[in-house]
């Protein structure tokens, strides 16, 4: 057990903190308009990469620092604490990159990894389809081998950053005869290839973070297969576990920063004749949100310990994901309670508390129990893979 940081971690924290204090862009520097924001954030990632602060735990030969998981977490936490903007290449960094590190050929590693770190290549993840969400193995996008190439046809949806991505990690069916899980391959597709059409999807928050992607006879060189032919399912599962294993530890810092500003706003909101912060019920709600965020951290630290011991994330990451969804949604609900009558109003010029910001937080939080595998899918994983309950009908 070791909660305190060791010397190396402390030194790293100081380095990162000093760097961020001097370099984090101010909120007003970041463009509101989504396309301009993405370009701005790409520059931010490049700057961080040049400072050696992206992909710390990646192997040194591919541009990382070969740092420990805990050192990577130190950096993630400092970024969140400093209110640093997210890394726009996060699909590549957290999801696709680790799969290439784990399953790629030497050529693939050399071709893709460094460009992921620098933000030069933004990746998107072509997994979900209209008919294959929670039941991902039901996916129908096909890749047929022809003349040393894959020809991809199909339709992907909920594809974050697709309109800004250079590459897409596509799960496609390469053997229609095999059982569902054994006929899927993981193929790296250049988004500039003819035959790809992208239609942005506006989400409930009003942002168009994701898109639908249509593939019409898209030709992909055979060497863009990651891992074995028809071996894509295992890689995808590794990818998703990795995403879940990581996410909670970083996200809890973001939620902590949000809660701090909610407490601040609670002092500026009237509720039934006094400020919200003086209301004992509101204090309880804030305390419960605070407890949740702390426990998300504790659970994350425990999973990290298990990940370090096992060398990879396990099914336990589904526990983290379920805790995260609960905690994030509870925090968002607390915000509505704090704002009371104002929670549904629009922003008013000159007012200290901006309800629209909390509406965005609330709406976005609904996704926490859906993305990366819905809460129901996570419960199935916990029940079957951890508790050993028999598989049954869904």
């Amino acid at each position, binding site marked *: 057990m070791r909660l305190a940081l060791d010397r190396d971690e402390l030194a790293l924290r100081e380095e990162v903190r000093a760097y961020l204090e001097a370099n984090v862009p101010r909120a007003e520097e970041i463009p509101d308009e989504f396309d301009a924001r993405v370009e701005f954030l790409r520059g931010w990632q490049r700057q961080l990469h040049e400072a050696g602060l992206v992909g710390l735990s990646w192997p040194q030969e591919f541009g990382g620092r070969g740092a420990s998981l805990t050192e990577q977490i130190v950096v993630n936490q400092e970024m969140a604490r400093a209110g640093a903007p997210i890394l726009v290449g996060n699909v590549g960094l957290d999801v696709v990159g680790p799969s290439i590190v784990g399953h790629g050929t030497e050529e693939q590693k050399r071709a893709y990894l460094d460009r992921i770190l620098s933000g030069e290549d933004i990746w998107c993840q072509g997994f979900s389809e209209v008919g294959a969400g929670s039941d991902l193995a039901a996916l129908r996008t096909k890749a047929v081998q022809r003349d040393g190439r894959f020809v991809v046809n199909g339709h992907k949806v909920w594809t974050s950053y697709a309109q800004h991505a250079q590459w897409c990690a596509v799960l496609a069916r390469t053997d229609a005869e095999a059982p569902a899980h054994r006929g899927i391959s993981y193929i790296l597709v250049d988004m500039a290839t003819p035959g790809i059409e992208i239609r942005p999807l506006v989400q409930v928050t009003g942002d168009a973070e994701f898109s639908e992607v249509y593939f019409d006879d898209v030709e992909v060189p055979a060497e863009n297969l990651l891992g074995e032919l028809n071996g894509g399912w295992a890689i995808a599962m590794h990818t998703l576990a990795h995403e879940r294993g990581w996410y909670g530890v970083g996200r809890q810092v973001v939620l902590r920063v949000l809660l701090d500003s909610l407490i601040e706003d609670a002092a500026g909101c009237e509720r039934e004749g006094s400020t919200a912060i003086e209301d004992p019920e509101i204090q309880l709600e804030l305390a419960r949100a605070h407890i949740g965020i702390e426990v998300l951290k504790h659970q994350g630290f425990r999973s990290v310990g298990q990940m370090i011991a096992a060398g990879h994330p396990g099914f336990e990451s589904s526990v983290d994901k379920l805790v995260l969804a609960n905690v994030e949604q509870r925090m968002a609900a607390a915000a509505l309670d704090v704002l009371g009558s104002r929670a549904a109003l629009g922003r008013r010029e000159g007012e200290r508390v901006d309800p629209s910001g909390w509406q965005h937080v609330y709406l976005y939080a609904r996704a926490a129990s859906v993305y990366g595998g819905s809460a129901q899918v996570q*419960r199935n994983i916990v029940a079957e893979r951890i508790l050993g309950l028999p598989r049954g*009908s869904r």
Partner: protein
Amino acid sequence: MRLTLSEDQLELHSVAREAMADLAPLSLARSFLEGEGDAAALQAELGDLGWYGVGLEDDGFGVLGLCLLAERCGAQAAPNCLVDTAVAARLACSLDRDDELVGRVAAGEVPTALAVIEPEADWSLEGAAARLSARGEAFTLSGTKLGVQLGASVEAFLVSCDHDGERAFALLAADQAGCISRSAPSLDAAAATVELELESVAVPQSRALSGRNATEAIDRAFRVGAVATAAEAVGASSAALDLAVAYAKEREQFGAPIGSFQALKHLLADAHVDRESALASVLFAAAAIDEQNPSAEEAATVAKAYASRASRAAVEAALQVFGGIAFTWEHDAHLLQRRVLAAERRFGDAIQHERHLGRMLAARRQGAAA
């Protein structure tokens, strides 16, 4: 920044698992429910195993080790005074250790029960009516205490009381004159609770904790008690969940094991999330205390509040899986349910700790704004 148990701690947990399964099968807890319980043998065995002293000295186990043992006590709904004794030992360290009883309690050699609750005072330690009054060079203690665990078999009581308007504690030998104990069974029968009637019990100065140093010592000792009790709650709910999972694999309805139905899978999965996250909060808080981390106070509050609610949710889910059978007196699940409910309340229930945190958050904000 990682929550993993050391080899020694893992070994301790596994030894404790075997020992408790052997020494305190659920049938022992049940015997109390039938009014026939006797905790003396187990109490002596735990003493021989050295459990009362775990985490006191620099033994490599720490408060975390204590929590691992408490977790196992909870899993067997065992009649035990492990946590009370650990708290008493820590408080005794602030007393005069030249006093023979104090020295032995501080060394973790004396099974001890905390006497805190009164008709009008609770685990917050506010407003105790039990009074420690000066008499010459010494004190006398009078009052009534409720819900004192294992009151008939422990050798000492550590009693919360008021001294000149301040929180205080007094250490009594169980057989002292004026210290009258009456069996008063409670929801968790295996806690073997008694009511104490204290009538001008003599307390030498060496056994009284009051004044300026007392508050800090009490807070620190109660922090340990809260976290270890949270561990006991997690152990009890976790054991009930294990039973329910095993049952869900065997019990068939509609021609299939009920554990293959998603409705039950999701119920059990949520309960598993509850127990794992509660355990994480306990391990974190225990490690924070052991490492003298500045977050220890807050972490203990978080752990007690969270584990109390999560353990109840998990044990209730487990009972639901059993359906009607766990609603019978003869089924063992309610022994564990009773332990969860009792542990939830000891050292402050979830509401008490949530309120405390809420006031802290509000005060911190006002402090920052000032």
